[in-house]
Structure formats: C-alpha cells, structure tokens
C-alpha cells in the first residue's frame, strides 16, 4: 500500500492512542460483579494469575488471585491496570477499510472478508504463493498460534510466515536447542528459592518481569548471592552482591573469561562433564586466551569484579542463571546464550533441586507461542519444518499431502526486506506492530508503503495498521478461551471473561472464516478453542514440546501443567533434565564454543557513543495496549536519554536538555536524563514509543546469523545537544507521537 490515507494526526484523532482512565470511584458494578474470572495477565511471560471483575459484559476491575502459585496475588503496575484495555474508547468495534483522503471507514464483514480473500488470491496468482506473507505474534494463545501456523501452510499455502517472537527470545531458543535439544527454561521459578548464587544477565527483571523479583528476593533472604550483568545499574543491580557493568556487545567475552577462570581454578563438575556432556574440549580451546585482563579490556568491567563473580559461581553448590533480551538482542545473541549455558554445564548444576537455568521469555505466550508452528522454520511440538519425518507427521494430522506443505520461509525482518525488494506483495498481520517494534523503522515504513495489499487483525488500530487496506476487528485476550505457556513452561488457562464488543469478532472466528473462504473449510472447523487445543495436543505428541497429556480440565484442576507431558497420567515436568537424558541427537548436553566477536556496528569518530535500548516498567513492548492506559503513560510519559554525567559534561548537556541522537539509519530527539547509573560510554533509550519518539529509528537491522534476531542492544550513535530544555514530560504526548 501507499502512504497513509490521511495524516497520522487525523488517524490518531479517530482511533487513538487515547488515554483510558477509570472513573473517580471505579467503574459501576465493580462492587457487585456478575462474574469473577480467574485468568492471567495479558502482558509478559510471567503470566501472573489475576481475577477479572465482570459486569454487563465489561471488565470493570480486578481482584488479586491469591491462590495462583507463581504470583500469589502479586502484580506489577501493568497487571493492575490491564483491565483498562477493555472498555476502551479506541476499541475497534467492527471491520474498517482504508479510504484514500478520508482515513478509515466502517465496512461489512462480508466486504472485508471478500476483499481480503480476493487480494490474497490475486497476489498469489500473479506473483506466486510465497508473495503473500503473514506476520503473527506471541501474545496469542497456544490455540491461536497453532491455528496461524496451520492457516498459513494449509489455507494460504505460503512459506513466509513468521512472528514477533523473532524479536524476543529466538536466540535463546536456538541456543537451547543446540545445547539441550529442547527449548524451555529448565526449571520452574520455585527452584530459585534455595539457589546459593543467582546470575541475572541482561534481564531488567524489576522493570520487565517485576513479579519474578519476589523469587529472587526470597533466595536472598536465604542468603543467596546475586550477580547482575547489565550496562546500567538497574534496580536489581543496586543491591546486588556483584554488578558487572558490561559494555554493550561484549557479553560473550565475559562468559568466556569466567569459563576459563572456572577451568583454571578447577571449579568444574568433572563427573557431569565427562558423562553427560560433549564438546567441552573444543569449547575450552576457544577461551584459552580469555584472561581476566583481556576481559577487562574488552568488557570494561574491572577484573576483580569478574574474578569475584567467577569465584562465587564456581564455589556455589546450588545456583540459577537467568538471562533475557539484554544478551539475546545481538548479532551474536546465540553465542551469548551458549556462553551462559557453558557456565551452567561446566558446574553441572542443572537437573537438580535449586539448580536452574533459563531464559526469561518476554511475551505473554512467548514460550507456548514459539512451540506450535507460527515460526518460519517450525511445525507444532517444536518440530522442524525441514525434517521429512516431522513434515509427514504434521501433514497427516492436518490431512494434507506432505508435498503440499510449504518449506522454510523468511524470518520477520527478512520478510520486511523482501517486501522492500518487491518480492513479497501482500501481508496479513495479527498481534504484531512492526513499525514500532522492528529496528530501523524508516526502512520498515518504506516497506509497508510498497505493499499491494495489507490486512491486519487487531483490536486497536496500531501504528503499523494505519498502513493497512483492511482492518478486521479482532479480540482481546480476555475475549476468548485458550491456554498460554508461561516463561516457566507452565501451561495455563486463559478464560473468556467477556465477548467481543459491538461487531468485533474473536480472532479465531476470523481466521476460520478466512480459511473457509479460501476453500479449506473442512480442515478449519472447530466448535471451540478446546477442540483446537485437542488437535494441538495430537500435533505436539512425540515432539520435544509435548502437550499430549495436557487437557483443559487438568490445567484447571492443577492451576497449570508443565510440559513435556506426554500422557494424561503424566504429572508434567516442572524441572527438566533430572534424568540427565538430553534431547540432542547424542543424548548429551552440548558445550558450544562461543568466541568473542565484534557487534554489527562499532563506535567510530562519526558515531562515537554506544547506544543501547530497553524497556520501562509501565510500558509493554510496542505499546499498542499500554500507551492507551492513562496511568501507565503518566508513570513514564516519554522516552528519556539516559546519560552519565561524565559524558554529559563532555557535550555540555544539561538535565532535560533536548538531545538529537543520530545513527546511520535515522535520528530522534530525546530529553536527557543525567544519571550516574549507566556506563560512561553508553546511552540508553527505551523503545515503546512510535514515530519521532521511537528508539527504533536508530537501531540497526543487523541479524544474528542463526536466530535472525535483530541487534537492538548495541549500535553507534552521535549526540547533539539542542540548547533547549524539554517541556515537562507530562506535556510531551509521546504516547501518540507521529
């Protein structure tokens, strides 16, 4: 499609973001709800239990759910305010279509569906099946994730399906598959409780997974030492025993040096290494020159601190290593993950009580959503789309000929590149806002403008959807039954609290209707979400992510079941690897060399400062939901450029002075927040905002060669003070920036 039909300002006027606040004394009916629904938060991978209060088919408030074992009522500010996404003035209440010069107007479902299907057919007939692409997301339930994978391969018959998990934890997934042959956090979080040492690498837990803090603090109450690896003094790092303020892009050097230290001081579990692992020698060889002095030079961390961390880790009897996007959003994200896993394997502390390892999945269903086949290279049960046996099994479940099943497609950012090159002409997106969340947003916008047809399924008109021809009004998380899988691997039940308002429909019914109109009704007929789940169970059977033994009833009765769970009498697997039987071809855990390499972009005379990006506690990802909730916006109204006073002094920067930050891809202007809590050579901008306030105007599209994750966490930038103090944050209106 071409440019926006009318100005972005006009679209915002009609469709938001507008801020939703609760009335002064709460919504009517909060005191006497029709229903109290035990479900889960729609945001991050913690999937905290929460009870929604429902009155007259509207969510009017919440009540903590004290019994749910992970969070026992605890919530973060996003969780407390999540109920305000329901009952929202910006909510799309029916399908709308683009009208040039006017913006978007209501249309009928029939017309919207007809147009969508005819355009899919037209594009595919003219340019080939794969010229139509699909971008999905992992805030969707397992059922919908599975359905999107099947829809793309069976109904649309395109190979180019990928998802926003590509920006999330794919590096961890790839690393875990290499090392363990399976992609899941190896333990549930109650194993943190008696861990002696906890490493938190590139995970701003207190802002991105606040409720996980409880388990870490609990361990510390029992005397655990905590090591935080982060270029910034994040809230967790303030009280940490060791804070390794790593220079962005040098993580693998740190892990390599720590591994060498463990080896040199013989803090290894030889029995475990000898009997249950492979690849140790070649990995050891790759770090043989990684002395503490070298590591200090590369990472900028004092060698005494690295030594202290290595000593603590080496001597511990129990431990837990957690990492997240901070080490994964790199052109060597997989290497960073492998570097962490090497530290875990070297000490043999896995598969035992209070000995754990895991990535902290970011999105609500980041775990479950990445297992059931809406990834470009994957089929349900975390099967491989290029493995003939896997293809055959799934083709049988779906009732299609294996030969008709498309092969491996392009990853999310590669799809954007292919659109840019003119190879892909059509796009269907659901639960994904690439214009805000992908790097190099100018480039992404240009790609969107080249599409011949773009249809979006969403409940709000997000920034990307403004470029769409048709928007199908879909459903919120609380408007459909389903399941998700939390970051611990716990499969849990999402409840339908209300039905979609107005003429909006459930996502599932929209997909099923499209499939029907594409002529595949016989393969897309389900009478409930549970029916889809039951098919998913069969499809996942025998795969590494085996859900076969999990039923809705069992989840409800047990407040969640941990996969793998192959049979209905299997209790589920809260802790992996107790049997030391890894899922790799040789049945062993693999050490992998992860030698230090430079990031995709390094600082030079033109761009002399390191830029890194991240999140704030009150916003969630691209902000489609959270930039519409008043109090969450008020808590952090606009992105600020965090800069160390020493660096600020070099540029003569004042507190709250506007700074133009430019990279080779674009520029943006942000108020400075001068703080000692960041490295002197690095600046930080949070990324939840759109338009001119988007940090992703600056970030590079450099991808990890294995996981294809973009390098959000490090690039080179140039700073230019604007000699003007920013107006108060509250007046910035950054939530609706164009």
């Amino acid at each position: 499609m071409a440019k926006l039909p009318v100005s972005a300002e006009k679209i915002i006027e009609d469709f938001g973001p507008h801020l939703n606040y609760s009335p002064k004394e709460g919504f009517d009916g909060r005191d006497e709800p029709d229903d109290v629904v035990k479900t889960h938060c729609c945001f991050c991978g913690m999937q905290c239990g929460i009870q929604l209060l429902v009155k007259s088919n509207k969510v009017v408030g919440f009540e903590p759910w004290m019994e749910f074992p992970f969070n026992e009522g605890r919530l973060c500010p996003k969780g407390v305010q999540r109920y305000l996404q329901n009952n929202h003035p910006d909510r799309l209440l029916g399908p709308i279509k683009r009208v040039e010069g006017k913006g978007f107007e209501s249309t009928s479902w029939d017309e919207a569906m007809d147009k969508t299907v005819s355009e899919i057919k037209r594009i595919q007939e003219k340019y080939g099946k794969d010229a139509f692409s699909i971008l999905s997301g992992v805030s969707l339930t397992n059922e919908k994730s599975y359905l999107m994978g099947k829809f793309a391969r069976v109904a649309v018959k395109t190979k180019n399906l990928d998802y926003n998990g590509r920006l999330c934890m794919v590096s961890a997934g790839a690393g875990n598959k290499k090392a363990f042959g399976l992609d899941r956090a190896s333990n549930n979080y109650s194993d943190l409780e008696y861990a002696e040492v906890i490493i938190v690498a590139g995970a701003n837990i207190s802002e991105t997974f606040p409720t996980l803090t409880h388990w870490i603090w609990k361990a510390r109450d029992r005397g655990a030492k905590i090591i935080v690896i982060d270029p910034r003094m994040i809230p967790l790092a303030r009280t940490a025993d060791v804070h390794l303020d790593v220079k962005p892009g040098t993580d693998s050097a740190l892990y390599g040096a720590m591994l060498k230290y463990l080896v040199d001081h013989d803090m290894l579990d030889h029995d475990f290494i000898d009997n249950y692992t492979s690849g140790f020698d070649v990995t050891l060889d790759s770090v043989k020159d990684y002395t503490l002095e070298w590591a200090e030079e590369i990472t900028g961390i004092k060698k005494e601190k690295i030594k202290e961390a290595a000593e603590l880790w080496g001597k511990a009897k129990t431990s837990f290593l957690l990492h997240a996007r901070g080490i994964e959003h790199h052109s060597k994200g997989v290497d960073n993950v492998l570097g962490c896993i090497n530290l875990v394997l070297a000490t043999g502390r896995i598969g035992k009580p209070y000995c754990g390892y895991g990535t902290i999945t970011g999105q609500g269903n980041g775990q479950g959503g990445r297992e059931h086949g809406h990834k470009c290279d994957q089929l349900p049960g975390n099967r491989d789309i290029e493995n003939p046996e896997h293809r055959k099994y799934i083709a049988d479940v779906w009732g299609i000929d294996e030969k008709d099943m498309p092969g491996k497609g392009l990853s999310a950012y590669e799809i954007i590149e292919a659109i840019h090159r003119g190879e892909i002409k059509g796009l269907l997106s659901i639960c994904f806002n690439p214009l805000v969340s992908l790097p190099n947003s100018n480039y992404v916008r240009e790609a969107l403008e080249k599409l011949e047809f773009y249809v979006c399924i969403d409940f709000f008109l997000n920034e990307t959807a403004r470029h769409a021809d048709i928007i199908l009004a879909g459903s919120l998380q609380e408007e459909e039954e389903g399941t998700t899988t939390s970051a611990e691997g716990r499969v849990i039940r999402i409840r339908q609290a209300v039905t979609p308002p107005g003429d909006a429909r459930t996502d599932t019914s929209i997909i099923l209707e499209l499939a029907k109109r594409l002529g595949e009704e016989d393969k897309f007929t389900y009478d409930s979400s549970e029916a889809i789940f039951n098919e998913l169970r069969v499809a996942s059977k025998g795969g590494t992510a085996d859900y076969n033994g999990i039923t809705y009833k069992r989840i409800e009765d047990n407040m969640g079941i941990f996969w793998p769970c192959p049979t209905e009498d299997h209790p589920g697997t809260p802790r992996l690897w107790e049997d030391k039987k890894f899922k790799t071809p040789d049945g062993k855990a693999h050490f992998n060399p992860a030698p230090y390499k430079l990031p995709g972009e390094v600082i030079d005379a033109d761009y002399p400062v390191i830029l890194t990006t991240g999140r704030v506690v009150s916003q969630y990802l691209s902000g489609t939901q959270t930039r519409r909730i008043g109090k969450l916006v008020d808590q952090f109204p606009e992105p600020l450029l965090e800069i160390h006073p020493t660096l600020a002094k070099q540029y003569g920067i004042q507190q709250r002075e506007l700074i133009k930050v430019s990279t080779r891809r674009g520029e943006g202007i942000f108020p400075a927040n001068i703080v000692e809590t960041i490295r002197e050579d690095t600046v930080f901008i949070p990324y939840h905002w759109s338009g001119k306030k988007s940090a992703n105007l600056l970030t590079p599209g450099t991808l990890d060669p294995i996981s294809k994750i973009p390098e959000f966490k490090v690039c080179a930038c140039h700073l230019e003070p604007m000699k003007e103090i920013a107006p108060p944050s509250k007046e910035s209106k950054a939530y609706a920036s164009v």
Partner: protein
Amino acid sequence: MKNRTFNTKASLIATVLSIFSVILVFLGSRNLQNFDAALITYLFGTIFAFFGIVYRYSVWLQRPPTWIYFKRGITYLVTGKVFSHFWFASKETIENIAFQKFIYPRGKYRWVAHFMIAIGCTSAFLITIPLTFGWIHFTMAPNSISLYEAHFFGFKVMEFKLDSIMAFLTFHALNWSSYLVILGSLYYLRRRLTNPGLIATQTFEGDLLPLILLIAISATGLALTYSYQFMKGFAYDFLAVIHAVTVIMFLIWIPFGKFFHIIQRPAQIGAHIYKKEGMKQGMAVCKHTGEEYATNMHINDLKEVTKELGFDFSMEDGGSHLDLSPEGKRSRLAQAHLKARVAGGNLFG
C-alpha cells in the same frame, strides 16, 4: 488543666453571647409583641444550639493549631492586610461557601446533591430563625384584605398581594427548601449505603443520622403543609410534634456532629489567605529535594505549634525535620534505613 480553663472560657463566652441573643429577641420582636408563642420550643432549641455552637467554636479556637490561624487572621484584620485580600476573600466566599466549588472535582453528582442540601438548609435557616426570634412577621396592610406586609425587626420591608407569585413563593419557601434537602440527602444516603469505602469508614451517629434527620425534618415539614392544604388538617398536631422533635434534635446536634462544618467551613478561606500571605513572604525550600514545598511562615508556625503540642522535631545541629518536604522526609528515612541495613551487613533476610 488546659482543657478545664478552656471550657470555662468557652462557657463564659457562650453564656454572654446567648444572653445577648435573647436580648436581641426581645428587641427584634418589639418586646415579644411580634413573637409567635407557638414557636417557643423552637426558640429554646435555637438558643441552646446557639450556646452550643459558640461554646464548641470557642473550645475549637483555643486548640494551638487553630489558635495560630485565628491569631494570624486577627493580625491581618488589625494591620489592615486583610483588605488587600478583599477581592480574593469575596471571590472565595462565593465560590467555596456559596457554591462549594471544591466538591465538584470530587464528583459531579456529589456536588449537585450537596449544593441542593446547602441551598435548602440555608434558605430554611434564613426563614425560620428570624421567624422564631419574632424578627419577621407578616400582617395585612391596613385597609386592605389582599395586601400583605412583611416586617423585619419591627420595620416594614415589603408588601405584596395575597394571590401574587411573590406570595406563593414566600409562603411556600420552606417547601422548596424541603424538596431540595430531601433530594440531596437521598443521594447521599444511597451513596453511603452502597459505596464500600464509605460503608467501611462511616458511623451511624456521625454520618447516617444527620441525613436521616434532614430527611425527617423536611418530610414532616412538607407533611404539615399538605395536611392543612389538602387533607383538612389530618394528623396535623401529631405531625407538628414530630416536626418539632426532629428540628430540635437537629439544632442540638449542630455543635457536636456533622453539621458543625457549616460553622467551621469559613476557616477554609482563612487558610487560603494565610497561604497567600505566606507566599508573599517567601517559600521554604526542601533541604533534600531543593524544591519549594510550603511557605516559610507556615513552617515556622508549625514548628511552634508542634512544640506546644509536645512534639520536638528539632535536631542537634539546630535544624528541624520540618525543613524537609514530604518527599524529602521519605527519602531521608530511606537513606537512614539503607545506612542501617548496610551497617547490619545484610540488605535482605
């Protein structure tokens, strides 16, 4: 000890003023010539209420924090400073006392309901008290059978025809007040019976009884009207007694219960002037945040008041904890806590 002297003082003031008001009744009713004997119980109720209010007000004024505001107010009055705030005070009186503007942001309906009660009560007071005191009375104009004359304090103030709109409005004024009060009170009663926050914190005598009394007074008052207008005086005497009982309960309740706020509320304007005057003299800057947070005068006054009340927030170095803004105090406490935790060797556990 303190309390006892306060009480004596307050009793004295109240007694003197009550006697003075009785004298005014005599003067205003021209030696009881215009006094309506039927209202004698109301008269006693009102005088008693007046005594109670003055007593309570005097006790209240003598509390150190109130006294300092009172003292400042008198000083402004004597030094003439108050006149520089004349417009401000007038504006505030209209906005805050007449229209209770500050309630509006708390809730639109809350304001509407309160305003209805306030208008109803005020107009009722303005009519009934002078009537009771014999300060107003109505007579037929000499040589006329359709012209009424209204007298205030024995002086004729106006006349109107018996069947005029003015007559209708005047004679039914209390009915209009009653409707307003009933509607407003019902809103509040409903709110108090359904809002969980209020249910948790309210008391019967402090919050519900006043509303019930208001409704009872208004309803019985209306019933009196309808009894003689439409029902040929059905149950009139009974209603009259009930009405008198509720009114007298209400009057006696004023000094001790919720209705005292009617008397107390003008102090709000005093507080505003105090703040304005303080700002002229300069703002206090928080030692921790470096930001202005209150007027210097207010901080200094409070240092004295707290001392007088037995709290000593002064520090060894001559400074005071009150030199910190609320945020500054919280931060200093957290810093002290961190220091203690670090000294204890463990931030957790």
